[in-house]
């Protein structure tokens, strides 16, 4: 057996782009900073040197314009990959994405397709503030014609990005900045992870915990602690938001009777709203207790870490919600919860990783 290749998500995304570009000369990268020294947190590092400026194209600060350019080129059979350092900048391109990327295949009865991939990064911590840390995936997930994915593990990030670059449809890939630090085994070479729906990442029978992106890592941490208290969580990665394929979640809830959804974005009108509504519609009779959603509160993201104390769901708030859902004695969870809390307290709330030194 080959030695495990351990990469973080940022490295996996870089490798995916490299592998796909080598395989398909029609693929080219566009974005603000894709060939600069920082190379989008390293995710495009070395690509400009390897493939040249014609295939790794530095862009003017014109998100809607160059998104339209990418769509026009994609309709003509090219395969653009756009990268936005922050989701918040992509807001300027919604007209092109919603009206043209998402609808051209439909309007032309399948005659034209728009093989476009747009990576958007959600910021968090180090004072990113209200317009550099928005998790806006519901905006994109509500539009038929777009595919929307949120990779969390390194293996999945690479496979999803290669699959997206080979897909005939516009794919929005939303990456949480803190997910970039997550490491895992990544196979070498070309492989794909299908863009088809959520997947179970941990088996359990007491409660179904579904999470998007970075919140999956918090949920997995929570699940380990819950296990120590005798609660086994079925943890599902909401890796693909659209096409929406709720079957694995509905099936899980039919077994566990309990649903806890953790949104990386806002709780209200978040992805969890759609998931909970669907589970209630399809598995109402299996629910032994009302579903619970965690997510961001109803205010913008403040900059100061002092104001962020209770802003994001954490493994601890997930443990508390799961404990309440399953109705276990607080005493049973107290010791493992305290141990985790002590562990988490070692890292400040606004820093993703021990190696992180700012500025973004």
């Amino acid at each position, binding site marked *: 057996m080959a030695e495990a290749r351990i990469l973080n998500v940022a490295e996996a995304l870089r490798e995916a782009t490299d592998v796909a570009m080598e395989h398909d000369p029609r693929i080219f990268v566009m974005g603000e900073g894709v060939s600069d020294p920082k190379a989008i947190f390293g995710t495009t590092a070395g690509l400009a040197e390897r493939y040249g400026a014609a295939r790794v194209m530095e862009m003017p600060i014109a998100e809607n314009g160059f998104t339209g*350019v990418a769509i026009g080129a994609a309709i003509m059979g090219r395969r653009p990959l756009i990268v936005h350092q922050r989701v918040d900048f992509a807001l300027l391109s919604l007209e092109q994405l919603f009206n043209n990327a998402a609808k051209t*295949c439909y309007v*032309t009865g399948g005659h*034209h397709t728009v093989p476009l991939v747009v990576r958007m990064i959600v910021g968090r911590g180090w004072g990113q503030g209200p317009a550099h840390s928005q998790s806006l995936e519901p905006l994109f997930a509500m539009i038929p014609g777009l595919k929307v994915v949120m990779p969390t593990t390194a293996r999945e990030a690479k496979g999803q990005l290669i699959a997206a670059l080979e897909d*005939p449809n516009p794919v929005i890939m939303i990456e949480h900045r803190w997910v970039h630090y997550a490491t895992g085994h990544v196979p070498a070479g070309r492989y794909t992870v299908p863009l088809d729906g959520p997947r179970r990442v941990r088996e359990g029978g007491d409660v179904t915990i579904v999470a998007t992106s970075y919140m999956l890592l918090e949920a997995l941490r929570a699940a380990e602690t819950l296990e120590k208290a005798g609660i086994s969580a079925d943890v599902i990665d909401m890796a693909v938001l659209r096409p929406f394929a709720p079957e694995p979640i509905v099936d899980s809830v039919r077994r566990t009777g309990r649903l806890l959804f953790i949104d990386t974005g806002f709780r209200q009108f978040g992805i969890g709203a759609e998931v909970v509504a669907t589970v209630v519609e399809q598995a109402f009779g299996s629910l032994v207790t009302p579903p619970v959603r965690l997510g961001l509160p109803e205010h913008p993201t403040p900059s100061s870490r002092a104001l962020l104390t209770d802003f994001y769901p954490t493994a601890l708030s997930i443990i508390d919600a799961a404990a309440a859902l399953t109705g276990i004695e607080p005493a049973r969870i107290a010791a493992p919860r305290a141990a985790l809390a002590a562990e988490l307290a070692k890292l400040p709330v606004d820093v993703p990783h021990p190696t992180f030194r700012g500025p973004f």
Partner: protein
Amino acid sequence: MTTSRAGADLPDLYRAMRRIRMIEEAVAVRYAEQEMRCPVHLSIGQEAVAVGVCAGMRPDDQLVSTHRCHAHYLAKNGDLKAMLAEIYGKAAGCCGGRGGSMHLTDSTAGVLLSLPIVASSIPIAVGAALAIRQEGRDAVAATFMGDGSIEEGVFHESMNFAALMRLPVLFILENNLYSCYTGLKDRQPRRPFVDLARGYGMPAEAADGNDVEAVREAARRAIARARAGDGPTLLVFDTYRWREHCGPNYDNDIGYRTEAEFLDWKERCPVEQAHRRLVAAGRHDEAAEAAMTAAIQAEINEAFAFAKTAPFPSPETARSHVYG
């Protein structure tokens, strides 16, 4: 058979304009039947820009148009039956009834897309030009833009990018003086439109938008530059929308413009100008006119009959092709 009118003489240009005028007038007349149930933005009065520009374009040259796309589509040899069937919402429409009058497309003719959101089409044409560059071909792309579209930010973004990359694209500013019911003077400062191009270091040329030969010559120079790798051009053509912004009627009585202004522009009708020029040169006469219009009318009648009798798409197909 080539579909380009690159070598086209005035008779061909005149016929193309007359045909578009007759088609649009037929749409206007039949609109009252309440069977064309989608918004229509008629091109009547603006035929010279469409025909003059497309005269120099080949089928592999890509055109991207706007909500007011009928003349552009027809001038580029878009299929008439597919256009009318689309307006009637039929399965045989160029979009199978999914787009309507504002989404005309015909790949065979090089009508890449028409898009109804103002200025949304501009970067699409720039992207088509980028694809052409990446494929190493000598084709060009062209985007028709109304005067309102240059008020949108994406016009600037597209001009900047096309100039930066020296892409083979024509920005065709078709100034008809009105954005819906708001006049140009209420929306933009007075300055020559060609000056806009200077800000991007891009060549520009203005010509009488109601003189099809002047349009053709300006477009021909821009297309030659683009094919030679010398980059984009802004072309500016003043013209006039005869009818209401959307719909089949005249609207000189509702207060935003005057009958006198309309009559002044009507005097400069692009179709009649070309007709007079041909007659004066002894190249056209009443008999030839009658024969030509009879042939066009027969084509129009047949196309309307086709569109009206063509079957609607079946309801269950509404869900197909969301993804490719």
